[in-house]
């Protein structure tokens, strides 16, 4: 790679749009590193204006095909907070289960379909050898254990329909839950093997940068409740998130970036485990110890390991939920709208997700504000790259690109963005 010059990486597909990366080097130092995300092109916040609150979850779940349940759940939390709805314990547990399903699916897809080819030096899973295809089956099976749950609770894997403000439109049958349970128990071992596999890979990659972390912290490792904690020590209430986190517009990108007290921070699996390791299911904690992994750490590649660890946690927690569950028929709660503001904060597979709505007295949306995890990570990604790229100067450009890709992929900015992230065009 030349020590001076610029290159840009065109058509990074984003979570909800497309992105490029522009880099300018001078004497081996990164002068400029801009992640240009054209998110916002779809104007979800504007589209929600004037819509009835009952339509929100189904509209926002279309923001992202992969973490639609997270968007659903977050908007539902915001709506229920706004209209003072307290759903039953059973509903909460089933929502947790659905969230688990989505995380399983999302993590498995990311790890096996997008990250693994990197580690094997392959362009895509389609080029895997017979030997390597074995791992693909691991991935598919783990994913299936998640999708089956989501399908069961939401009716469909993408753009689920059954999860609504006030409860579930339809409850699953016990026998169906039992089937999910069988599959989960079968895939436990795969999850453990997965952790070992990814830990062995990420151990070899050494890039490390000290930064702050943010996640919802709760004694049950919940993805929906808890307090927002920073690794640097600050603890804030969910509803106050935007009071502390500064959202700022960068002129080259359609997506806002965020900072906390002027500095960048990371969100996602690594942030969660860094902050909340003790709340993981026992088996997940055991394996961390067994493999001699140390959390908290600042190695972003360990985000992949963290995802793998979460896989095991998710399986164990789902197994426990299903075993303890005694399904009872219950109607959905009726919701009486009023003029007010509602906020929902949850952990999505890729990090903290924030939804805020203000409603008029009939429950129509006046204003909506959504902050997605990738927005929060963008800033950190840029800063990481500023430190990382200079270490690659000895490599030929193509190799360097691959390394950059690996780093960005470690963040799991969104599965689709990670897929063909970097296509380098040198500018003279």
């Amino acid at each position, binding site marked *: 790679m030349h020590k001076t010059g610029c290159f840009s990486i065109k058509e990074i597909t984003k979570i909800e749009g497309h992105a490029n990366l522009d880099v300018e080097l001078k004497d081996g130092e990164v002068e400029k590193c801009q992640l240009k995300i054209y998110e916002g*092109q779809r104007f979800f916040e*504007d589209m929600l*204006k004037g819509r009835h609150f009952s*339509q929100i979850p189904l509209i926002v779940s279309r923001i*992202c095909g992969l973490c639609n349940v997270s968007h659903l759940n977050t908007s539902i939390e915001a709506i229920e907070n706004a209209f003072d709805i307290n759903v039953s314990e059973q509903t909460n547990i089933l929502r947790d289960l659905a969230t688990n399903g989505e995380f399983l699916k999302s993590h498995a897809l990311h790890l096996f379909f997008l990250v693994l080819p990197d580690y094997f030096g392959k362009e895509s899973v389609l080029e895997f050898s017979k030997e390597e295809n074995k791992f693909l089956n691991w991935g*598919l099976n783990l994913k299936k254990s998640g999708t089956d749950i989501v399908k069961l609770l939401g009716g469909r894997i*993408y753009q689920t329909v059954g999860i609504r403000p006030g409860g579930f439109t339809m409850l699953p049958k016990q026998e169906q839950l039992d089937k999910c349970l069988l599959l989960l128990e079968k895939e436990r071992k795969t999850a453990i093997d997965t952790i070992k596999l990814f830990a062995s890979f990420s151990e070899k990659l050494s890039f490390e940068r000290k930064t702050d972390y943010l996640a919802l912290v709760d004694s049950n490792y919940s993805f929906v409740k808890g307090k927002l904690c920073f690794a640097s020590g600050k603890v804030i209430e969910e509803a106050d998130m935007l009071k502390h986190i500064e959202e700022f517009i960068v002129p080259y990108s359609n997506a806002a970036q965020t900072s906390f007290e002027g500095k960048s921070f990371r969100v996602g699996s690594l942030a969660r485990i860094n902050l909340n390791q003790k709340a993981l299911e026992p088996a997940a904690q055991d394996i961390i110890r067994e493999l001699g992994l140390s959390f908290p750490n600042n190695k972003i590649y360990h985000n992949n390991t963290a995802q793998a660890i979460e896989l095991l946690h998710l399986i164990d927690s789902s197994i426990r939920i299903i075993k303890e569950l005694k399904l009872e028929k219950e109607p959905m709660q009726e919701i009486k709208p009023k003029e007010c503001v509602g906020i929902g904060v949850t952990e999505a597979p890729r990090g903290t997700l924030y939804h805020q709505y203000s409603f008029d007295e009939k429950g129509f949306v006046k204003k909506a504000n959504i902050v997605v995890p990738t927005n929060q990570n963008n800033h950190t990604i840029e800063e990481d790259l500023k430190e990382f790229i200079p270490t690659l100067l000895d490599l030929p450009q193509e190799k360097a690109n691959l390394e950059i890709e690996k780093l960005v992929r470690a963040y799991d900015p969104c599965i689709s963005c990670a*897929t*063909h992230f970097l296509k380098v065009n040198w500018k003279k």
Partner: protein
Amino acid sequence: MEKKKVKVGFFSLTCCEGCEFAVLDLEEKLLKAFDYLEIVESRVLMEKIKPAAVKLDIAFVEGSVISKHDLDKLNYIREKTDFLVALGSCAAIAGINGIRNSLPEGIQERMRQKAITPVKEKAYPLSSFVKVDYILNGCSVNELEFLDFLNKVLHGVIPKLEEVPVCFECKLKGNACLLLKGILCLGPVTYAGCGALCPSQNAQCIGCRGFTKDANFDSLDNLFKEMKQSKKERFNLFTYFNPLPKELSVLKEEK
């Protein structure tokens, strides 16, 4: 069936990309289909796009045309392929992106100004610009319908759109009708193919597969009126995934 592999590509314009993942969800069945398919381009499965020289037998395109970039890409795909399939509501009918088309002109104008990359005046389905050979509708697409399509094409059967409303499949499933329970439902005016997914979950159909040619909007709207729905609520429901039908232009009001 000929042993020559069919060259297919998956492309994505502005959308949530759920459709391509929905296809991936066919799991073993998809792996089996790979015996007959050669994936030339795919955002999900592949890292780098292969050189554009290859002619595709089938291109699946998800997403709506919102920016100039989308349009350029679409034209490029159309040129490269013999058979172009609109994958999912965004591509077929503008889908959820189309909500912005029914926003008041003032807001639309502001959105256009706010955008950093140039956007088109509205969100468009693919058919507004290029010839679309087949439509696999739905948000997200029904993976079984996708499989059925593949199966047909691979055997040389000309696929045909099923022109039946969601109610047809809803009844085949033995569901109690939501309209009779007092819940609004767009099933009677929406194309089936999803297996009446939402009504089977006790949830209203929101029209994600597009309105039927044979729809009786007036009658359905009258029914909603009898169910004490305000103009705004009815407008909201009918424009969930579709442009407001001509018959119901009375519902339009500046908000």
